[in-house]
Structures are given as structure tokens and as C-alpha cells.
């Protein structure tokens, strides 16, 4: 237990913040997708940290991490596909140009 629990948790929070920032500021859909993945990874860090520090004999947190990674991959696949179709149809990847639907 050389590293205090606060360190990895701070890292997780920081990563979540960076991901959020990216998701909110980037206009390129792919970058936003990547930022969201960053947020998920922040959660993963949290989960693993908690698992290791709080319940060392219980792997539920790590199990969840595995699932999150899997789901994130699926999500990314679907997301990229959607962005691809969009790009093919309208030749844009900037989401601030996608405003047909509003009001």
C-alpha cells in the first residue's frame, strides 16, 4: 500500500474532467467519441482502485471494469458506424453543423 488511495482517485477524477471537457468543446464527432471513452476509462480507474483498496478479496469492481471495457468497444463501434453514415450522407463530421432537428 505504498500509494495512498487518493492518488488514483484523483487521477480518475482528472481523467473524467478531461474527458468531459473534450466532449463538450470538440466539434469533431470522433474527438467527442474519444473524449467519452476517456470518461469511461476514468470510471475504470475508479473501479479498479476501489476494488484493490476497499475490497481486496472481492473482484466485483474489476469484473465491472471488464464489462465496461467490452461495452465501450461496442459503443465505439456503433458510434463510428453512425459517424461514418453521417459523413457519407452529408459529408460532415462537425456536429455543430448537424442542426436539422431543433426547437
Amino acid at each position, binding site marked *: 500500500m505504498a500509494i495512498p488511495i487518493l492518488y488514483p482517485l484523483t487521477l480518475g477524477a482528472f481523467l473524467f474532467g478531461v474527458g468531459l471537457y473534450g*466532449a463538450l468543446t470538440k466539434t469533431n464527432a470522433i474527438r467527442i467519441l474519444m473524449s467519452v471513452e476517456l*470518461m469511461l476509462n476514468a470510471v475504470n480507474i*475508479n473501479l479498479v482502485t476501489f476494488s484493490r483498496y*476497499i475490497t481486496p478479496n472481492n473482484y466485483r469492481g474489476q469484473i465491472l471494469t471488464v464489462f465496461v471495457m467490452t461495452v465501450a468497444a461496442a*459503443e465505439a463501434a456503433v*458510434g463510428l458506424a453512425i459517424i461514418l453514415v453521417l459523413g457519407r450522407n452529408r459529408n460532415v463530421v462537425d456536429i455543430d453543423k*448537424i442542426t436539422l*432537428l431543433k*426547437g
Partner: protein
Amino acid sequence: MSFDYTLLLPELILTALALVVLVIDLSLAPGKKQSLTWITFAGILVAMAGIWPATQTSASQTLSGMVSSDGFSIFFKVLFLTVAALITLASGPYLQQKRLPVGEFYILLLSATLGMMFMSGSRDLITIYLGLELASITSYILAGLLREDPKSNEAAIKYFLNGAMASAVLLFGLSLVYGLTGETHLDIIGKVLNGDISHWPIVGVALVFLVAGFGFKMAAAPFHLWTPDAYEGAPTLVTAFFAVGPKAGAMAAVLRAFTIGFAASSGRWTELFAILAVVSMFFGNLTALWQTNVKRMMAYSSIAHIGYLLVGVTVATTVPGVASVMFYLLAYAVMTLGAFAVILAVDAFGPGDQVGNYAGLATRSPLLAWGLTLFFVSMIGIPPTGGFMGKFYLFSAAVQNGYVWLAVVMAINSAISVGYYYGIVKEMFVGKPLETTSVKAPAGVTAVVAITMVVTLMLGLYASPFLNWATAAAALPRFF
């Protein structure tokens, strides 16, 4: 722990069905896929029959206690399967008309339903998350199923990006809960939290993250902003599904998670849901008044209905609270599907999806017009319909628990909602149609309208069995 497959029979059947459809789809030539509709429909009925064994045993759990089969989950499974069945029933000619990929549609629909069914049965954060994501990811694809339609693309990307972030937010909340309690199983979380720990500020933070995440999935204001765009852009049939399925799934997860996992902190989240309820009702109803696109209007209407449901969630610490939400979900599902069946008919086989397109529908197609009127009446909450019974139940649950003000807000909102439903009713009955040919809805759609009409009335006039069912199912079992 053994794996009791009888408890997961419907899920297993549904999974198998999805695979069967996938295979058959591959073997059928394009344009000749009508048989898929009936295979799916029959399969769903079989899945529904598969629930039977579970009803014969007392509430029990499987998969190491991660999933349970109890009255609550059975209720929701029946609900989800019914929704899927009705959607399938209405789908055939629509898919053909819009040139949607038939096989994919059914597979996605079945997968989403599967995800929702898991959500309702989950007793563990892990399975809740998995079920949620299964439902969500398939939904993103469904929203963008009209690949050539830029609006559909847009709906998909908006839904996806928002949904992905919401998942992250939810997960962050889940990770905090796990960190606090060291557990992912709801019953144990509930036990651990039932101490001093429940007063820690960090619990509040975790709750906020969870409420935001679930709030997004059920489209409660102020997490609703994606909803209208996704509803408008998505194919109408998919919108119909969105309006019912994912919401009900999220609601099921919320009910179980919060009443079992966070029962001890109920003092904190009830107020949160009350705020969400009020904001949703007002936002949904007031904004709906300004819509000219019926699908978009229905999106706002659905936001308002989530507000009504959240009134019940606010008092979900009591059995009537949970039961009222469940009953209202039932009524809501039936009347919303009915309404969307009409909207679908008018959109795909009639003039379109703008309010003005409904002019003179009463003479062009009396059944559709009267049906839609009945569903709207039910949505407003006027007897003798299921919507009234449901609202009445929510109302009385709120008043009984001292939330008279919430009931009053609900009453006011019911009245406001007349404003936009009226616009369409007026068009249908008083408006002058551009053309007077009758609107011919396909048999499947007509059947859905007829079935939902009957059930809507039944829920209003002969509600006892359903009320008893909901109440019996609302008593969530605790295993630890």
C-alpha cells in the same frame, strides 16, 4: 450456485429468437422478408409463454444473485414483451414502405427488449449496467436505421453522443457507490448504507450521478434535451418503441435500485425525484404546446408523462408508490403505442407527421381519429380510461404520502396538456382536409389500434386485476 434456467427462460428464448431471425434473414432474398414479421411475432409470444414457469415459483434469484425472478420483473417482462409484440405487429408494411432493413430491425428490437428485461430483473449494478447498455446501443442503431435520411442520421448521432456521456456519468456514480460500500449487489448496498454512512455527503454526490444517468435514459427534464430530436428524426415505428421501452426499462431499474439499494437514503433522493417530476411535467407540457410536428409533440408529451411517473417514484418508498408507477407505465405503454400506431398510419400511409396533416381525419378514417382521441383522452387523464386510473393511482399515492402539492402540480399539468392534444383533435374533427380519400392503415396497424383501444378502456373500467397485479408485484423481495 446453480443456474436455474427456468427463471431466465424468456430471456433465453428471446436470445435464440434473435439468432434465428439473423440466420433466416440471411437466407431470404431482399424484398421477400415478410415472413420475418410473423416469425418474430410468434417468437415473442413463445417468450411470453416462457414466463409461465417463473410465475409458478416464489421469488428467487439466479446467476449468483445478480438476477432475480420475482413478481416485479415478471410484470415488466410481460410489459416489454407486449410492447415488442405490438411493435412487431405494426411493423411489416411500414418497414417495407420505408425500405428499412427488416432483419436488422427485428434483431435490434429483440436485443433492446432483452436488455430491458435484464434491467428489470437485475439485483446487481453490473447487470443493471449491462442491460442498460444493451438496450441503449441497440437503440442508437435503431434511431439511425433510415440510413439515407439525414434526419435519422442526426437523431442517431445526437442520441448516441448524449447517451454515451450519460452512460459515463451513470458509471461514475456506480463506481462511487461501489467505492463507498464495496459491493455491487443491491441488497448488500442497501444493508451497508443503512448506517452512518448514509449521511456522508459523498452518498449524495453518487445519488446525483445516478439520478442524472437514469434521468437521461428515461428522458426526464432537465436531462431530456436529446429526446425531441431523436424522436423526430427516428423512424416512426422506432419512435414508438423509444417512447415506451427504454423509459420503462430505466424506470424498472430506478425502482429497484433506489428502493432496495438506497432505501436508507430515501430522504435524499425523493426530493430529487420530486424536483425532476415537476420540471419534467412543466417542461414537457409547456413546450409541447408549441410543436407542429406530431412526433416531436409526442416526445415532449412523453417527457411530461415521465414527470407524472416520477411523482410515483417520489413516493416509491411505499408499496402504493411503486405500484402506481407500474400501473401507470402499463397504461402509458398501451395508450402511447396506440397513439403512435395512428401517427405511424397517418405518417407513412397518409399525409404526414405535421399537425396540419390530421385535418379531417375523422371523416377520412373514423377508427384512427376516434382511436387517437381516446388515447389522448387517456393521456390527459380523463375517465373512463387507463390513463385516468393510472393518474388517479399516482395522485392518491402522492396525497396519501403528504405530497398534496405534487398532486396539485400534476393536476395543473393535466389541464395544460389539453392544449396540445386538443390541437390535433380539433384538426381531426373540425379541420377541412385537403383530400377526402380515406386513410388506409395496414391491417397490423389497425389491429394495434383496436387492441390498445380495448385495453385502454379496460384499464379504466375493469382495472381491478391489473391493480392487484401491480400491487402484488410492487412488493420487492429482499434476499439478504
